[in-house]
């Protein structure tokens, strides 16, 4: 490759002064703009104190919330009683009333405990039954304290004062968390296995939690003797406290998505449900099984399918009706606002400023106003979209009208047609496809806006989303609604694109 000599380089440079001798502004505008943006971002960092906000964020909660989108937790609590264990589940456990999950195995044995006399309630009531069981001997438990004392007093007359009852209780439970981890709980002792590592913890009831060996990396104890938090990654975590072990076991999926735990169909396989609906005996005498199943699905307490779908329909209706009304009103007004159609400066200005006003008062403001006026619900949303979009459409339509080809109009006018006919045959064929295409585009984008303004009270799925998010518990419901919204937006996007393409093809052919 031949190198250029200095004079040749000079000649080339002289031939292209625009490239080689640029003014100061030309040379440095780019870097100055970049520096300005960088400075501005630094200012914004300070202005919103983004650093502090980011560092104060509850990042560990974020992981849990995200996991909640696609999974759920079952939360058994294992409480240490005097010499046995009590396993309890929260009231609305995804496993329904009285859950007996396969991953919790228990060992039962007869134990004795002191009960305050007058207070003979459920506990000793159960004890009466198990005192008969005690005659059969311990049930598979080897750690049960020997039954020394005589059987409790006659079940018929509970006695006054403290007494000792003997009953069959849980004395050991093994909770399997995923395939490799398990928590083995006995009174006074908890053993956690994760993979090959084992953590042994001694518990002094209501006093302290003491690990036998240094804690592995997946366990944490803030204060000596305080609670130990054990993490099993995605599959869950456990808090070992001196009075109970709280277990959070996480499973993939949306729990009870079809039937909630109160439904008679709950927990049945698909085949069982189908056969019940097809040929089974009526579960509830009043209505058929099919109606019952549909009812149970729609009014699923956790997922509220019927409500979610109605709210989603509201959002769709808000966008649809709002856009249609706005188009219908903007259509005649745009003709009055276009300066080539209505050659009246005053009328043009009035309508154009009206459009600007409607557009510039934000959709949020309209939504808040109409929520006050009509009460929360889709009417407020429709009105907000209608007002904002009348402005938007009016502006777009009148601009389209001002850009039309005047020859067609002249042609129609030259044959002596009436003014209305001139518009119909000279103008409308040119602009109608464009109008429709603009409306269709906004129909799709309004579906998204309707979701947002819903949250300020204008009805629809937005409000429901907002409520679900505010509890910080129902992220799986949020995920469900987001999926529905995404589907709707996707479908509408495609419908709107399909029609717009057809319209554009039609208008370019004619």
């Amino acid at each position, binding site marked *: 490759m031949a190198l250029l000599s200095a004079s040749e380089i000079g000649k080339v440079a002289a031939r292209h002064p625009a490239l080689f001798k640029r003014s100061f502004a030309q040379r440095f505008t780019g870097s100055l703009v970049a520096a300005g943006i960088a400075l501005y971002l630094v200012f914004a960092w300070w202005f919103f104190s983004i650093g502090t906000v980011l560092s104060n964020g509850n990042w560990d909660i974020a992981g849990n919330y995200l996991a909640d989108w696609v999974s759920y937790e079952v939360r058994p609590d294992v409480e240490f009683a005097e010499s046995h264990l009590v396993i309890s589940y929260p009231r609305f456990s995804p496993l329904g009333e009285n859950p007996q999950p396969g991953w919790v195995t228990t060992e039962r044995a007869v134990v004795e405990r002191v009960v305050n006399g007058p207070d003979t309630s459920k506990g000793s009531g159960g004890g009466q039954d198990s005192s008969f069981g005690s005659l059969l001997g311990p049930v598979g438990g080897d750690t049960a304290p020997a039954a020394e004392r005589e059987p409790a007093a006659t079940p018929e007359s509970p006695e006054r004062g403290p007494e000792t009852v003997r009953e069959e209780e849980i004395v050991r439970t093994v909770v399997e968390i995923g395939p490799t981890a398990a928590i083995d709980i006995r009174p006074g002792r908890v053993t956690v296995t994760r993979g090959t590592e084992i953590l042994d913890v001694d518990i002094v009831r209501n006093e302290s939690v003491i690990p036998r060996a240094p804690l592995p990396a997946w366990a944490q104890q803030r204060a000596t003797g305080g609670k130990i938090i054990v993490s099993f990654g995605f599959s869950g975590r456990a808090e070992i406290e001196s009075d109970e072990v709280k277990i959070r076991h996480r499973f993939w999926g949306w729990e009870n998505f079809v039937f909630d735990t109160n439904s008679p169909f709950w927990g049945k396989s698909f085949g069982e449900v189908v056969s019940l609906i097809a040929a089974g005996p009526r579960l509830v005498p009043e209505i058929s099984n099919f109606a019952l199943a549909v009812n149970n699905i729609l009014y699923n307490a956790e997922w509220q399918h019927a409500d979610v779908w109605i709210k989603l329909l509201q959002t769709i209706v808000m966008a649809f*009706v709002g856009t249609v009304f706005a188009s219908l009103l903007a259509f005649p007004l745009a003709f009055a606002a276009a300066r080539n159609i209505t050659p009246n400066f005053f009328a043009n200005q009035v309508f154009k400023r009206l459009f600007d006003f409607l557009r510039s008062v934000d959709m949020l403001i309209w939504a808040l106003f109409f929520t006050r*006026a009509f009460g929360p619900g889709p009417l407020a949303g429709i009105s907000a979209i209608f007002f904002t979009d009348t402005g938007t459409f009016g502006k777009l339509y009148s601009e389209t009208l001002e850009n039309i080809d005047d020859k067609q109009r002249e042609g129609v006018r030259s044959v002596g047609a009436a003014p209305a006919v001139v518009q119909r045959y000279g103008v409308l064929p040119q602009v109608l496809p464009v109008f429709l295409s603009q409306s269709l585009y906004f129909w799709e984008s309004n579906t998204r806006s309707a979701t947002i303004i819903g949250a300020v009270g204008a009805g629809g799925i937005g409000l429901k989303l907002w409520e679900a998010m505010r509890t910080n518990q129902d992220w799986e419901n949020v995920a469900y609604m987001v999926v529905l919204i995404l589907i709707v937006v996707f479908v509408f996007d495609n419908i709107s694109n399909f029609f717009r393409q057809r319209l554009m093809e039609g208008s370019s052919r004619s």
Partner: protein
Amino acid sequence: MTATMTATPLSETGHLVERHWRELAGRRRMYTLLGFGVFIAAMTASLWFANETNAGKFFDRLPYFFDFISMLVPRDGWEVWRAMFDLPSPHFDGSLKFDYPEGRVYLTETLYLPEYFYKMIETLNIAAVSTLIGFGAGFLLCFLAARNLVANRWLRFFVRRFMEILRAFPEIVISGFFLAIFSLGAVPAMIAVTIHTIGALGKMFFEVVENADMRPEEGLRAAGGNWTERVWFGIVPQVLPNFLSYGLLRFEINVRASTIIGAVGGGGIGEALRLSISRGHEAKTLAIVLLLFTTIVVVDQFSAWMRKRLVGSQAFEFGRGA
């Protein structure tokens, strides 16, 4: 018209054409009517449904509509300005309604920014930061999604779907999620608006890039430029004005979006407006509406002027990409 139609008998083929045309027109008319019927039915059903599921019924509420407007009338004409500039009000009775000076943001000992101006600046900054970051990210992504620059179908496909998801994901969910992490404030709003902006701008950008003139790029390819050089020197200079103009349009939209997100917990003027409307503070509400309206008009005018300078007078519609 009928008088001039002389009844010349049509030939055989003429009849055929005539019949076909009639059939075609008839079918077309039928489709139009059918479509119209479906449309009317859908409208009626929608309106009925909306009215039925609303908290207040349309015709029941309509008479009270103007009551609400009359509730917005301030005590006297100066009240709005006092509320806007945080001046003490003669109606002050210890309630939140007239406590205008409370909200002052002092810059120095005596110089203060009125509360709503400060909030408006906050909202504008949310919009500006999100637009800038979204612009940058959209800029980086759009070249990977353009058919004329990236031969790999899968890369294009993934980048496009990614941007689509960013765009369609409801902003309110993003802001709600980050509100749960960061608690109330502007950062969740910023993140939400930014994420949406990346998707929206990225889509418009790659459409611009696909329509770019490929001759400069070919020249650079002939001179042995690598991909980055070809894009940077061949494509970017011709698309940049369009990009900037789309960015400005997005800024307009983002000012509105950050107001709305603000109303649902993102801070800024939106929140102030929602609170003042729901508490029935007429002068404050009017002051905020006035301020917001003016700001939006100014931003729109500024951006329209800039866009005109950038891309000339070629029409620039909303509906073309967005």
